[in-house]
């Protein structure tokens, strides 16, 4: 396991933002980079590699990786649906959206479909309360969700998978 050239360039850019000897400050962004580069989650091997690159101890990386909710400590599906369930989204029907996705994908919250395509998670307020109900999918937000919109999103994910095969 190693970053490729492009990923290393990005790594160096991230580290260069901090003063000499403060490279540990780059840990959060470097963990994002590592998660994106190595299968969408952080294995022990990945975390050890990050520790080595930043010249810090592995425990310093584990401490951080287990604290923040965006780091996945076990494998996830190709598409992760992170549906917000906090007050303002709840008022606007997030429960219905969560139930609909569960039904449609045949999984519970926290599970991944057997084909490894979809993972369903619930999250707390993502700063899109005025555009509720919403979920995060990778880098972007899907807002004003309806059952129809969920159908479309799932269909698009499946079609993309078909194209890639």
């Amino acid at each position, binding site marked *: 396991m190693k970053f490729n050239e492009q990923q290393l360039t990005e790594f160096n850019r991230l580290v260069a*933002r901090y003063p000499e000897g*403060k490279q540990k400050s780059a840990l959060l962004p470097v963990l994002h980079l590592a998660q994106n580069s190595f299968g969408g989650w952080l294995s022990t091997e990945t975390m050890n590699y990050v520790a080595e690159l930043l010249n810090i101890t592995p425990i310093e990386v584990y401490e951080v990786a287990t604290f*923040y909710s965006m780091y996945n400590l076990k494998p996830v599906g190709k598409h992760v649906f992170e549906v917000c369930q906090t007050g*303002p989204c709840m*008022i606007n029907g997030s429960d219905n959206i969560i139930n609909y996705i569960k039904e449609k994908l045949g999984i519970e919250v926290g599970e991944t479909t057997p084909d490894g395509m979809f993972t369903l998670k619930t999250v707390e307020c993502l700063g899109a309360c*005025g555009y509720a109900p919403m979920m995060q999918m990778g880098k972007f937000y899907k807002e004003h969700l309806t059952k129809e919109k969920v159908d479309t999103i799932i269909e698009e994910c499946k079609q993309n998978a078909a194209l890639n095969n």
Partner: protein
Amino acid sequence: MSKKLLLEKAHVEGIKHYDVYRREGGYKSVEKALKTLSPDTVVEEVKKSGLRGRGGAGFPTGMKWSFIAKPEGVPRHLVCNADESEPGTFKDRYLMEFLPHLLIEGLIVSSFALGSNDTYIYIRGEYAWIVDILEQAIEEAKTNGWLGKNILGTGFNCNIHVQRGAGAYICGEETALIESLEGKRGNPRIKPPFPAIKGLWERPTVVNNVETLAAIVPIINMGGEEYAKIGVGRSTGTKLISACGNINKPGVYEIDMTISVEEFIYSDEYCGGIANGKRLKACIPGGSSVPILPANLLLKTAKGETRYMNYESLSDGGFATGSMMGSGGFIVLDEDQCIVKHTYTLARFYHHESCGQCSPCREGTIWLDKLLYKLEHGQGKLSDIDLLWDVQRKIEGNTICPLGDAAAWPVAAAIRHFRDEFEWHVNNPKESQIKNFGLAHYANPIQPITA
């Protein structure tokens, strides 16, 4: 129409890009500050403006800036708090998405005032696409000579870096944010020392909210005294309010703090009234941490006076009958909403977000979550309501950082104003699972005003 200082140009086509932003008068405040003012006079202007921190606490910004220590040979840092995670709050996101250059401009002037050569924007990890928008704006600003070395030939150097968080509400607390910037868990520090003395890498540091730093631009352009004329009393200038919940027009609005709460909710210029012709039941006016108010206390104070959208008026009556401006996250609940359920989702949120350092917060938020879960799901006892009250009392004021209070206050206010709804849940366990308590006596329905 409220005067607009921040969002005036938000709808100009292409304003995200440097050329358009500059053509519309952008970066003038940098020219003015760097060429005609000294760092200390910039701080003076900010003091005169009366600007109060827009991140939630409302602390006077100029005063905060004047506290920064200046030990010889030690670099100082400005950090922009873009962690925005308080439920109901999405105004900083709007500013960064649509007017990234306004923030960058404000950051350059503020960095000049504080002597920060390396300034960091700490943005919540979920706003991943906004990182790209900000980095592009920074690149453009650099290309055009507003960032980098020897800006405008004045000898002032400044770089801005964007650092992404990774999902933790607590990192919005300024010392947790600093820990996170240092590559650690977001555990708030014990104060003192305050960041102004020992902050990022033990260097003097000022942490300010996105909106606070954007407001520096109009303050420098128009002068602190002129800025202070807008608004009322100690609520000077304009404030961004992110409105959500059961309203016709959720979104981000800039107000000048002289309008009434009633006008804000019902006029077409703002929220456009309650959605689907329903009636107003309650509102959390300043983000999930501040006390919820029933309609009658929201629109009028306990003294029967009109309540206005500003710091003083929203907190009129203290916690007994008032609330707070907070972060400006305005959450409106209509007659069909269940207070117990809504409070439960907030308690679950704080339980999820407690960093776990102090026992009252770590254990207390678990209790709040569990008790409210029971009450909401028809498994509660009347004594649970008292227990809930007792637990929140024991968290408040007994913790390292204010997250403990933030978890306690919404629960306290919900019980204070809606105790009969909690009791109804206990006494009608089956019915409460299929139907809501409704409006009861909380609201004093008023006729919507048309704009």
